[in-house]
């Protein structure tokens, strides 16, 4: 049986780890609340924007094909991997990386794949692979967008850059891999086609028939709306991922705290057993000593 001091030290160290994990859990819970509010507020905006775009294209006779909806042969593919800047959030980042690897190995097999990682975790991984896009590609470090997610501008810059490359023909297809936020405990790993813009689903509803007045001309409106909707889409993916990250970390830290509690309980039991054994030993010795004197 391990000696008493050793066990006592372990109990203390497990206890302080537990304090850290439970503190991190609280912090994540608070951050989750904020991140969740952000994404839940953006969603109606993003959805309405898509709705308007759909109505627009539905009422169009010959849907005007912009640069961003051009479908080309997929030779050069860009995968945008959205991870987090920090670890300790369970399988959150690992699942993004795994998904990207699966995409490269299966869906985009034999194609020229580049990976743009947003978030240090994915970046650390992909910069060691041949797929990583050059750092000079971006006007700023893409991972820094997580420092201040309430700021739309840096995200818009990334979106613009991607749109430019697509328009120039550097990439024929762009997909985003990110964790969609469902609730605090559930993240859905999502792969979303970013470019070319998917044609809106025509659901044949009556509002599609509406004869709209356009001001200014429809082409101009579409030209303005599509980039806007693309930026919003990327921003939404980032907010989703951010909320998911905090959710995942909260769950991970909760589990860690539970494990620490369990471990501590076991150690305490061992400690008491060892202590009891030591006392019994001592009594035995005293009794034996007394017996010897009496004899």
């Amino acid at each position: 049986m391990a000696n008493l001091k050793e066990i006592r030290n372990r109990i203390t160290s497990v206890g302080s780890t537990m304090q850290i994990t439970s503190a991190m859990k609280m912090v994540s819970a608070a951050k989750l609340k904020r991140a969740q509010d952000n994404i839940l507020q953006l969603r109606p905006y993003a959805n309405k924007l898509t709705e308007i775009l759909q109505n627009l294209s539905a009422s169009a006779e010959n849907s005007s094909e912009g640069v961003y909806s051009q479908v080309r042969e997929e030779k050069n593919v860009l995968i945008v991997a959205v991870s987090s800047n920090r670890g300790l959030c369970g399988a959150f980042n690992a699942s993004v990386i795994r998904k990207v690897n699966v995409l490269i190995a299966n869906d985009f097999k034999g194609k020229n794949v580049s990976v743009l990682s947003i978030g240090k975790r994915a970046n650390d991984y992909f910069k060691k692979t041949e797929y990583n896009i050059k750092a000079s590609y971006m006007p700023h470090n893409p991972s820094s967008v997580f420092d201040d997610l309430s700021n739309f501008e840096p995200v818009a810059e990334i979106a613009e850059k991607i749109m430019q490359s697509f328009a120039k023909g550097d990439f024929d297809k762009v997909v985003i891999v990110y964790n969609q936020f469902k609730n605090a405990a559930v993240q859905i790993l999502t792969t979303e086609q970013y470019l070319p813009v998917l044609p809106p689903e025509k659901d044949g509803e009556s509002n599609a028939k509406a004869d709209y007045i356009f001001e200014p001309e429809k082409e101009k409106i579409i030209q303005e709306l599509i980039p806007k909707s693309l930026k919003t889409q990327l921003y939404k993916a980032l907010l989703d991922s951010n909320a998911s990250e905090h959710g995942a970390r909260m769950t991970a830290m909760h589990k860690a705290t539970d494990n620490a509690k369990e471990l501590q309980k076991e150690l305490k039991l061992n400690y008491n057993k060892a202590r009891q054994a030591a006392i019994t030993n001592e009594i035995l010795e005293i009794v034996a000593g007394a017996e010897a004197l009496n004899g």
Partner: protein
Amino acid sequence: MNLEIISPNKKLYSGEVTFVSLPGTDGSFGIMKNHAPLVSTLKQGTIKILQKESGKNKFDDESAEFKHSLKDDKELTFEVKGGVVEVNNNKIIVLAD
């Protein structure tokens, strides 16, 4: 007619209105009941609305910020930097930036 003003950060307004004035890219315009379907982009300016009924019940819970200061006003204004508006079937959606 029903009006919703949504910005990326929050829902600014949702409720029944009788008149909306919007800063369109090609000039300011007003919308009243039974307006023809319309899509327009907006430039920087002021959105002015006349509420059908004023009072605390006419406000969306999500826009708690405006609840107190504006609940008694029949006329409300919002500043926007740009955006899009869609009018269809007496339902107006403003996506403000």
